[in-house]
């Protein structure tokens, strides 16, 4: 290498530096224009953000919300009475394990007695009236009947006041289901005035099926959510009755045991016709029915 070579190298560096400067300037110009375009919002190059969540998912979330005004928190579904019947608590059987037993019994019982009605109503909303009558005939005690009717009617008013209009506007709703609910609601109002002792009642399970259908949920979601909401109601009652704290309750809710139990219970009753539904835990009828005998109580069932 000699002095001539050094001269060439110096020229080369100058060349590269100029190239670098030009490129940087170009980049700056492009970036500057992009920033400007974001403010205005009219460039075809921006990536579209896609949320694969349709209105039916939105409705699913609303129905699973514990703030859905059905008043489910007021019903322990027999838990309060169950605990009272197992007092004094024997040593070696803490209240928590008693609760776990109750939750399992309660979920299975609901799966076999009422889920078939929700599923059947979803499959054929025009049967709503008959299903309501048959479920009423199959509910053996006043306490459970009161709880089911109060929540069913609450669901009906939530539909009428909140869900019906947006569902119609979005053309999301299954029009058959919406019509069935409308007819049912009208008959319920007329029924108050009639003297027929076997009126329209408004039980929760069949209405749940039809409302889920009208809100675009699928059958599996509706069934699963029905049982999950039941589990949530029992757990919230357990927290309020100081069986456990809120973190414990959330642990159970999040746990795989509960998910498996709901899934397996659903699988067993999936093809069960409402007329073949029945009580699989006969003691539960006794506990729920005897809730009225409690000296002090904090729940309605």
């Amino acid at each position, binding site marked *: 290498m000699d002095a001539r070579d050094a001269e060439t190298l110096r020229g080369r560096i100058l060349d590269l530096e100029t190239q670098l400067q030009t490129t940087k300037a170009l980049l700056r110009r492009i970036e500057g224009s992009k920033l400007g375009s974001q403010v205005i919002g009219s460039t075809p190059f921006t990536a579209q953000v896609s949320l694969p969540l349709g209105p039916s998912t939105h409705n699913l979330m609303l129905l699973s919300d514990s703030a859905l005004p059905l008043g489910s928190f007021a019903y322990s579904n027999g838990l309060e009475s169950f605990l009272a*019947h197992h007092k004094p608590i024997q040593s070696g059987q803490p209240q928590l394990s008693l609760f776990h037993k109750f939750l*399992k019994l309660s979920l*299975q019982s609901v799966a076999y007695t009422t889920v078939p009605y929700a599923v059947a109503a979803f499959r054929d909303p025009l049967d709503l009236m008959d299903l309501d*009558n048959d479920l009423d005939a199959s509910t*053996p005690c006043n306490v459970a009947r009161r709880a089911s009717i109060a929540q069913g009617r609450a669901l009906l008013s939530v539909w009428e006041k909140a869900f019906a209009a947006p569902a119609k506007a979005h053309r999301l709703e299954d029009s058959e289901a919406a019509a069935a609910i409308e007819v049912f609601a009208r008959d319920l109002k007329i029924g108050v005035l009639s003297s027929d002792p076997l009126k329209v009642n408004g039980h929760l399970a069949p209405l749940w099926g039809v409302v889920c259908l009208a809100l675009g949920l699928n059958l599996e979601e509706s069934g699963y959510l029905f049982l999950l909401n039941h589990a949530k109601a029992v757990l919230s009652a357990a927290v309020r009755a100081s069986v456990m704290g809120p973190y414990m309750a959330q642990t159970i809710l999040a746990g795989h*045991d509960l998910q498996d139990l709901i899934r397996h219970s659903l699988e067993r009753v999936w093809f069960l016709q409402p007329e073949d539904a029945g009580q699989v835990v*006969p*003691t539960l009828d*006794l506990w729920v*029915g005897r809730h009225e005998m409690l000296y002090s109580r904090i729940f309605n069932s």
Partner: protein
Amino acid sequence: MSLPTSPFAPSASLPGTGQLVLCLLPPGKQVLQKFTYQYPLKLIAPDPHHASDDKHVTIAFLLTYGGGLVGGDQISLKVELQDATRLVLLTQGSTKIFKSPNRSVVSRQILDVQVGPRAALCYLPDPTQPFAESVYEQRQTFYVDPNGSSNLLVLDWVSEGRRARGESWTLWSWNGRNEVREMDERSRGRLLLRDAVMLHDDELAGVSLLDKADNMGVFGTLIVYGSIFKHLADFLVQEFSNQPRIGAKNWAANDSTTQSENAKEVELSRQREQQDGLLWTAATVRGFVLVKFGATELDGARRWLGGLLRKEGTVEKMFGHQALLCLR
């Protein structure tokens, strides 16, 4: 010339089927217009007796050979109570449900009863007793007058099996369904009441049938309906609401000197209920009174229910003391 038609109706009888039609001949004589049965079902009906209000009452015993159903036996009985008749249906000892060779072999008992206007059925049988590995299905449907003038008293109960042999809810499957429907020529009739219990041994989440039973050895349902049983229905609801509150302090118990004879008796029967582990509820449902009960021992339940019905008195008055034969 056509052949004369045979005076004998073609035989339509199938094994295990039976039919019983009860009607009233003027001025007040009850006769069994039809009374047929086929093996393994057997019916026995002594001459009708008079109830204390001078009306005829017919008793029929439902029997099976061997005192129960062997795996796969099917029994189907149709009963019709025509206008203003009174029938007592009884059994002679618990209906044993024997072991099935496998789960698909179902022993079945079907009972269809039409209760005509102003007619009354009193059906207080012994419980069914499902042995280990038995499979049983029971469908009982009662069709009543749509105007509500029929009367019904139906007991349906099931025990845990042969406790002496260590059997406690070791059955494979026991399905019982009782329905009351409005009588309707064209359709099945509107459903007025349904009571269905399903006991299966298939465990879910580790909960066995024994866990579900929660120390109970017998479960039962009593259905009360109609004007004849109005007083009984009111009595049962009253007795239920008079029970001591759960969790309340019993102040009366310590204060025995001031108690009357009556109060002592009440207290005694309550203590007996507690010893028998008896739990019961009564509810007014759609014009019916539905009583559900459970007890640790069959004898406890029998004593309690028999005691209640005797104390109230309608059954003995309207149907005679024989009606309570299975509750002794």
